[in-house]
């Protein structure tokens, strides 16, 4: 091997080593949110069950945790559809098309998306527009009369 080739390889190798020592931890840190294990169950209260009248669709509020870093983005709304005393469904407010915020119209009993024309019936089934499926439903439970939902039960973008 010629001296120049050897030196060239040495310089290239050293450069790669330095790039690796600096670059690999930097990339891992940058990608760390995506490398964590799947989401754990995260139960949050959205109000007392008695606050949601039977036979109607109400709005529940999930209060974000602003005491720890990174702070949650304040509060988010969910729809609570309570057809009978026991029949409770908690819908995400995000359209299953592209996450725009749905609005409930008690007159037509439909959920409307302002973005691309998604329309859902009161039971969450898709009526119109490009959404691929029904509205997202949260897993829910009732503890001491308080309605709780599992935030990890729907996709992270919803």
């Amino acid at each position, binding site marked *: 091997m010629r001296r120049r080739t050897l030196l060239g390889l040495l310089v290239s190798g050293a450069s790669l080593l330095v790039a690796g020592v600096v670059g690999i931890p930097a990339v891992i840190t940058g990608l760390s949110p995506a490398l964590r294990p799947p989401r754990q169950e995260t139960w949050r209260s959205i109000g007392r069950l008695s606050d949601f009248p039977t036979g109607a669709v109400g709005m529940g*509020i999930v209060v974000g945790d602003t005491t720890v870093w990174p702070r949650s983005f304040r509060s988010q709304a969910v729809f609570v559809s309570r057809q009978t005393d026991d029949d409770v469904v908690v819908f995400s407010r995000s359209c299953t098309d592209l996450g725009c915020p749905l609005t409930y119209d008690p007159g037509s009993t439909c959920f409307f998306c302002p973005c*691309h024309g998604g329309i859902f019936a009161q039971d969450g089934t898709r009526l119109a527009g490009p959404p691929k499926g029904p509205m997202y439903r949260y897993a829910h439970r009732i503890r001491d009369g308080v309605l709780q939902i599992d935030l990890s039960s729907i996709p992270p973008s919803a």
Partner: protein
Amino acid sequence: MLSKMLRWVVDRFGLGPIWDNVLDRQVPKDPWYHGDGMALLVLLTMLVVTGIVLALGYCPAIDEAYQSVEYITHAQTLGWFVRGLHYWSAGLMVVMLFLHFCRQVLLGGYKAPREATWLVGVFLLFIVLTTSLLGYVLRWDERGYYGLRVVLSAFQNVPYVGDRMVLLAQGGPEITSLTLTRVFATHVVLVPLLLLLLVGYHVYLVILHGTTTMGERKEPIDTVEEQRELYHEQAEHPVKGEVFFPTAVIKISPWSLIVVTLAVGLTLAVGPPELMQPANETAATTASEEWWFAWYSALIALLPPAVAPTFQWLFPVALFVLLILLPFVDRSPHRGWRKRPLATTLVIVLILAILGLSWLRHRSPWTGWPAAEAPSVPRGVILAADAEQGRLLFPKYGCSSCHAVAGLGRSQVGPDLARMDHMYSQAELREYVLHPPAGVAMPSYAGHLEGNDLERVVAFVLVAQTFPRNIE
């Protein structure tokens, strides 16, 4: 003394080669409208300068971002002007980039030896579109916030890695303070750095290989050698060639003057974009995207549900791959638009489609929305008592949310009641309202609309079918 100093500066700062190889070089004569690339450089400079000033006053924290934009706009001296200039320059940059792209397709600007110039340009196109979106997310108003949500939802649809992409972009399992700092860092550090590096390289390649000349447009060119010979022959020709600075620069500067005048004029006339309500997930909103993305929004709205989720992420990827492959697929020797009817047709269709879709998005006939007003009746028509009561019940039962009557009403989700395919009888209407046929975008009103109210609503629809198609 002065010339001695100038010589010293040129020598010590190494400006000689720049003067010789860039400014004082001979180039083939270009028509004025070839200055769109230079206009893009001017816009980029305006964006960098105004962006730096905005970053000095902006706070990338979820509780303060919105207020800091308000502060910049209303409390800082000339803050409104700087923010307006940044906004309009960004919008104009997207438009100019599109026109630049169309011109390159029309004139075969991606053909040998300019393949690399084109490839770098394709990366620039996507980077500019990305950063133009991230820019309005930073306002953290309803439009910005839901713009971010739309992107995250599109990521979610990517098979296998969708969840991970969302987690990476959000900085965790939900939108938190980390999300906004990520958007901020990407918009003001990562993207501008990439943009400046790639723009520098793009300009270098333009200097090295030149732009498509009038001569190249007229005759077929089979080889790179042929192109280079023709290019240099034209550049050195006493009539067909000219010096780049200042002759060619002055000639291609009208585009730059136009965009600067437009950006400043729009800032003075319209001002910076009004902020919508602060991002708030608990409030009802009709947030929409910025005008330069309206066409894409319309396209998504028109897609059937079986295709939409895949299209949302696959379309940009497919477009990127297609543009990257273009120089290697189109091997015809012609470069002018007259001899390339396919490229010309494609550009015309593209422009018409984007304008048409943007207009459609402005109307958004596919959007149903709660309406508070009862439908109008034609002048001179007096409804029977039950039909009149039915008309007044329309908002209560959300009929106006989806149906227009004789052209009046925003939504066209359901058919216009004065323009239905055939006349329905009272019994048919009653049955339709209570039990809509499968596949029809209408909820069942069984158990919700009954008794007298049902009869009154049906009575009004029965009459509305006889209205003229347009109420004057």
